[in-house]
């Protein structure tokens, strides 16, 4: 059973091939009159040979890992008793799962069924022999190309260019993973959202003023017919994000100005990390601070002043969320303000401007793109924040701009729609994906806008 050790084996093999390639390159160099005669450095030849050894083998292995499940399952499924095979596709999947559970020794309810026991034994046998074969194939796929690679090492082999090319491919693949993941997420959300829009018209979703996703699951059940107007949820999101930004932008920006322009370097050196600790507090901790400490204070204060304040309010959630995102604004803004060249400040001071005039008229405008960037990042954070709102702002979707009322946000609704037992073909559950798509489109637009702003102002000082 070499299969579990196949990756370490390939790596060890590659390391050996690297040394062989290196040796061979050095030998070639000695025969042809010194290292300068080689096209590339000996290490390039070594890396080239090692890559030729590892890459094809890993490729085969990855392909196998992707298709292993399917191949083995189809082999087992073909040999199942006829009565098990006659079932619908969904039930067949269940049977196969049971087979796997028995095979891997997991918990199962029907392990007494002899047909399944038999299939499980067959499954394990197929898996073991297939894995052994793959292991041998992989070893061949590493040794043969490596042998050819080492043979081909000569003073004219352009190993450096080949290695550079391989590095480029690896870097491209890494960038590709990030992009493909994004695309995958978008599509997975979009397909579910499209199913939702088959049940609920897009216009109802975007312009409906009532959000009440509880619908009857069975025909005889008493329940509302469901209303999927996203407007109250969106206004709740904007209301809370706005309150948060009203707290975070002034405090964060002014703190950044103080830290970068007025504070001594020793003060800055401990104050800045201290501010950043704020970003490290888990949002759920902020959430219960908001719900248990801030919200009651706001309620008492509001009641004393004669307002009607619900015990879960947008104000409490927004205030605490604002505190939470202060470090996003202050830390990034401090960096960009600090990066404004001293010559700008000198130029202004030499004209007789005061320190604050210099900051207001020269430093801030020069740092503006970065500041806008930090604010937009904070907005994205505020819009996407869930935990604080769940705990401090409530769950009911009121269409209200009153910060003292209970509101809800997009992310909170997604959570409440998806927790608990759900059926995945009712509009109620699918609404979560539509909301997710809406949120995604919104933050995408925000990022796009941020990039435009930054690009517009980027070249202004240099």
């Amino acid at each position, binding site marked *: 059973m070499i299969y579990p050790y196949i990756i370490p084996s390939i790596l060890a093999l590659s390391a050996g091939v690297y040394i062989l390639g290196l040796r061979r390159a050095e030998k070639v160099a000695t025969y042809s009159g010194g290292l300068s005669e080689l096209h590339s450095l000996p290490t390039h030849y070594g890396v080239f040979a090692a890559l030729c050894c590892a890459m094809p083998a890993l490729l085969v292995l990855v392909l196998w890992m992707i298709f292993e499940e399917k191949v083995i399952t189809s082999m087992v499924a073909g040999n199942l008793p006829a009565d098990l095979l006659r079932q619908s596709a969904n039930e067949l999947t269940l049977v196969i799962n049971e087979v796997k559970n028995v095979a891997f020794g997991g918990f199962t309810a029907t392990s007494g069924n002899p047909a399944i026991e038999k299939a499980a034994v067959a499954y394990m046998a197929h898996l073991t022999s297939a894995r052994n074969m793959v292991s041998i194939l992989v070893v061949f796929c590493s040794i043969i190309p490596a042998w050819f690679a080492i043979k081909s090492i000569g003073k004219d082999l352009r190993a450096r260019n080949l290695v550079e090319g391989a590095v480029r491919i690896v870097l491209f693949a890494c960038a590709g993973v990030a992009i493909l993941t994004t695309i995958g997420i978008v599509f997975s959300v979009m397909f579910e959202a499209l199913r939702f829009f088959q049940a609920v018209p897009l216009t109802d979703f975007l312009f409906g003023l009532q959000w009440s996703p509880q619908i009857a699951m069975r025909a005889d059940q008493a329940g509302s017919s469901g209303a999927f107007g996203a407007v109250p949820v969106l206004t709740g999101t904007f209301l809370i994000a706005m309150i948060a930004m009203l707290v975070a932008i002034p405090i964060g920006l002014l703190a950044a100005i103080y830290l970068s322009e007025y504070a001594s370097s020793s003060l800055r050196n401990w104050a800045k990390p201290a501010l950043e600790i704020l970003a490290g507090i888990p949002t759920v901790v902020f959430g219960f601070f908001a719900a248990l400490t801030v919200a009651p204070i706001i309620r008492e204060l509001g009641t004393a002043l004669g307002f009607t304040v619900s015990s879960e309010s947008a104000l409490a959630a927004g205030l605490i969320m604002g505190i939470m995102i202060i470090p996003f604004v202050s830390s990034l803004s401090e960096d960009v303000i600090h990066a404004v060249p001293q010559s700008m400040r000198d130029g202004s001071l030499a*004209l007789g401007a005061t320190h604050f*005039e210099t900051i207001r008229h020269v430093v801030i405008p020069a740092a503006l793109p970065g500041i806008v960037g930090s604010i937009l990042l904070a907005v994205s954070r505020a819009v996407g924040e869930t935990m604080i709102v769940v705990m401090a702002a409530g769950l009911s979707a009121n269409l209200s701009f009153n910060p003292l009322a209970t509101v809800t946000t997009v992310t909170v609704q997604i959570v409440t729609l998806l927790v608990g037992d759900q059926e995945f073909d009712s509009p109620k559950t699918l609404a979560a994906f539509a909301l997710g798509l809406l949120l995604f489109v919104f933050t995408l637009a925000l990022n796009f806008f941020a990039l435009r702003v930054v690009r517009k102002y980027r070249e202004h000082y240099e």
Partner: protein
Amino acid sequence: MDVTASRMTDQIFPIVAVGDSAEAHERMHVRPLDRKTIGSPFVDNPRMMCRDVDVFYGDKQAINKVSIDVGQNQVLAMIGPSGCGKSTFLRCLNRMNDTVSSCRVQGEISLDGIDIYHSSVDVVPLRARVGMVFQKPNPFPKSIYDNVAYGPRIHGLTRDKNELDEIVHTSLIKAGLWEEVKDRLREPGTGLSGGQQQRLCIARAIAVGPEVILMDEPCSALDPIATAKVEELIAELRTQFSIVIVTHAMQQASRVSQRTAYFHLGDLIEVGPTEKIFTNPGHKLTEDYITGRFG
């Protein structure tokens, strides 16, 4: 290297002459025992007077008992090897050294008879009266118009838009930039060429109506043609302002200045009419420097 050749090329870092480099090295790094300035550091009717000025960075003394006058409507050039303190001294004249927390200035520097380091003196109006142009052009990331209008705006020098337009106009004319930028006043100042940017910075300094303009190697980042334009400009500005210029290019000092001061390791070695300094220097160190024996 030929001594005259190194004199002719305006080298920023003149190369030590071959042959007596050890001797030159010693002269460059050992302070003369006699610290008395020779030549004529004082003038009749001075604009600024500096007496026994010491400057320290922390414990390190950068300027040592320097006394010199800045005359009316003339250009004073300050030359000397790198690190000799000429830029430090220049920055004392409008208290730009205040921004360096470790910097300490002793002695007396007065503008029109008033001690600028006295506790009652506000640094803001002082810097409006003693303007400064920096080594690297540093236009603000604003339009050409706003760059020039910056000083008048913060000092409230104008009552309305027309007056401001007028100040911007005359400042750009005085800086010799008007013809080149009159059609694009709203475009960013950072989009100009290096030489234009430096003249924009000069226009910006002029717009506040200073009495003295300090220039810290204003041409070291410019090409020869832009340098020639700025030098021409300095010659014209002299009729209205007193100018102190720090330069590494001795040719430039001889072209634009009436008086030249030679600094060496924080000491003011010699001051005199430019012609005399460059043809008949009174001190061995001055002579060695201007003949390119060290740099």
